[in-house]
């Protein structure tokens, strides 16, 4: 089944021609309307007309998350404010988020891409999708919501959490499809196990879309077996609309990246050079159809590889592997992007905390922050230490939106390594 068969199965040559046409448009639009790009182009001594083939994209500058942050809030906007209808933000490293704007057309295009994704997995109008991603400033839930509505699926905007209610919704409305993070899927499985719910017997589930966090093939197997469903991998990032950038088809062997909407490059994050097809590297994306906020050569920091060869489903858009790693130290909890520097900034703003700290991630979104207390400020009072623990955990919650457990340690307990200390210990087996 296809949503837009012509474009989904377009020949490579025609696709590349379309890409070039749209790339030229995008570059012109960015150069004309976004001072950041105009300055950048001038510095590199390039003009939009210099783009004559797809290969020329390599002469264009990269856009990094720091660029988006530096131009917060309106600096990357290519249209006047009357043309924007939605704002999403994504967390940043220094307190300032990244602002992502959508025009009406952008909202619709993002929904079209989701519609392609859902139809690709066999969804039909009589399906019921329980959307368990976070509604709000993050793109995860809303973009999926609009796409599913476009298909005509009944959407239950459940959001994450309140697991018992989630299960009741699944039972009462005969939910067939879930959209959630892998860690929440695992948590849901454990709760259902405790409650004696056997999904195959008690529920109507047929499939789940898992995204927002990296996870392994083993985790997919585990979730598929427990729920008795097909799990499809979903890739997206707020800067590129959110979900719907790349998605698995029924073959479940890599995610088709919609190349009529994005140009993908896989580069070596250290040398910035293109890696041979089939080798892993950092995914770099250029938007081709975005009106409000075109972005050129965005460094996603996600390490993936292109899966060579044609897909049996007939789609010609190339597939990327699941995320193999990150070329930075960002961590993802409950779909929320967190940088260790955010945690560090909060900790270093608290007097009674010494220099060293560690972040430990465990299953089911448990985050523990281990901090060494300052020797000089220790006064022997248990009450003061308990207050300190609460203060740290509350301040971190308002910065990273997740409330961590805080462990107080004696100074000198954590390993001090030369150069870059190991700040994050990830014990999750996703």
């Amino acid at each position: 089944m296809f949503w837009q068969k012509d474009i989904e199965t377009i020949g490579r040559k025609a696709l590349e021609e379309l890409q070039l046409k749209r790339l030229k448009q995008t570059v012109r639009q960015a150069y004309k309307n976004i001072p950041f790009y105009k300055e950048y182009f001038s510095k590199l001594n390039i003009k939009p007309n210099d783009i004559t083939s797809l290969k020329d994209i390599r002469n264009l500058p990269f856009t990094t998350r720091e660029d988006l942050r530096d131009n917060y809030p309106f600096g990357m906007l290519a249209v006047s404010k009357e043309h924007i209808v939605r704002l999403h933000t994504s967390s940043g490293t220094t307190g300032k988020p990244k602002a992502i704007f959508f025009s009406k057309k952008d909202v619709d295009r993002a929904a079209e891409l989701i519609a392609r994704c859902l139809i690709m997995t066999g969804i039909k109008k009589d399906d019921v999708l329980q959307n368990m991603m976070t509604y709000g400033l993050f793109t995860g839930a809303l973009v999926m919501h609009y796409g599913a509505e476009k298909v005509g699926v009944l959407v239950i905007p459940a959001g994450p959490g309140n697991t018992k209610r989630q299960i009741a919704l699944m039972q009462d409305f005969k939910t067939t499809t879930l959209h959630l993070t892998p860690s929440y899927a695992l948590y849901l499985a454990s709760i259902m196990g405790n409650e004696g719910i056997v999904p195959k017997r008690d529920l109507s589930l047929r499939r789940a879309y898992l995204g927002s966090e990296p996870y392994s093939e083993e985790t997919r197997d585990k979730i598929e077996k427990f729920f008795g469903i097909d799990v499809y991998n979903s890739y997206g990032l707020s800067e590129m609309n959110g979900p719907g950038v790349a998605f698995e088809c029924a073959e479940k062997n890599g995610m088709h990246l919609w190349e009529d909407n994005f140009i993908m490059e896989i580069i070596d994050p250290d040398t910035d050079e293109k890696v041979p097809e089939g080798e892993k590297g950092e995914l770099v994306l250029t938007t081709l159809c975005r009106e409000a906020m075109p972005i050129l050569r965005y460094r996603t920091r996600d390490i993936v590889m292109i899966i060579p060869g044609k897909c049996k489903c007939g789609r010609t858009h190339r597939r990327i592997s699941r995320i193999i790693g990150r070329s930075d130290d960002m961590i993802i909890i409950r779909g929320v992007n967190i940088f260790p520097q955010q945690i560090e900034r909060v900790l270093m703003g608290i007097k009674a905390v010494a220099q060293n700290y560690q972040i430990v991630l465990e299953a089911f979104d448990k985050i523990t922050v281990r901090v060494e207390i300052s020797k000089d400020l220790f006064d022997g009072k248990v009450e003061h230490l308990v207050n300190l623990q609460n203060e740290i955990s509350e301040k971190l919650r308002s910065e990273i939106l997740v409330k961590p457990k805080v462990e107080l340690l004696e100074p000198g307990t954590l390993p001090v390594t030369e150069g870059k200390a190991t700040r994050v210990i990830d014990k999750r087996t996703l």
Partner: protein
Amino acid sequence: MEQLKQISIFSENKPGRLKKITKVLAEEGVNILAINIASSNGFGVLKFIVDKCELAYQKLKQKGFTVSLNEVLAIELVDKPGGLCEVATILSKKRINIENAYVLILESRKKAFLIVDTNDIEKAKKILKHENLRFYTTKKTLKRKIV
């Protein structure tokens, strides 16, 4: 009222910490007269009354422990039923808040003191001065036979 100081040491809750701390004291020939451990949310604060307080404090500090020194009240308890109640009644009447308390026994049960840790020691001392309480002094021997 003579000054009695208590040593507090911060410690994570894990095996071997008490041994490490007391080894330092043993090596320095410091005698422990009373000990109290308060633990909460994964950590503990160990409190000691020792004979050579200043020495113990300096040595622990040198060895890298997170340690602090503060004055506490040491109120003599009568070794009979109701002994603690008498003292508690006075503290309550005078609105002295006890943050932490434990017992120091000297001369193998001949003398017992209630160690009281309170947030404003000077105020507490002033308030309790004229009460019918006996406080610890160094004139009473600090030699202690092992109970």
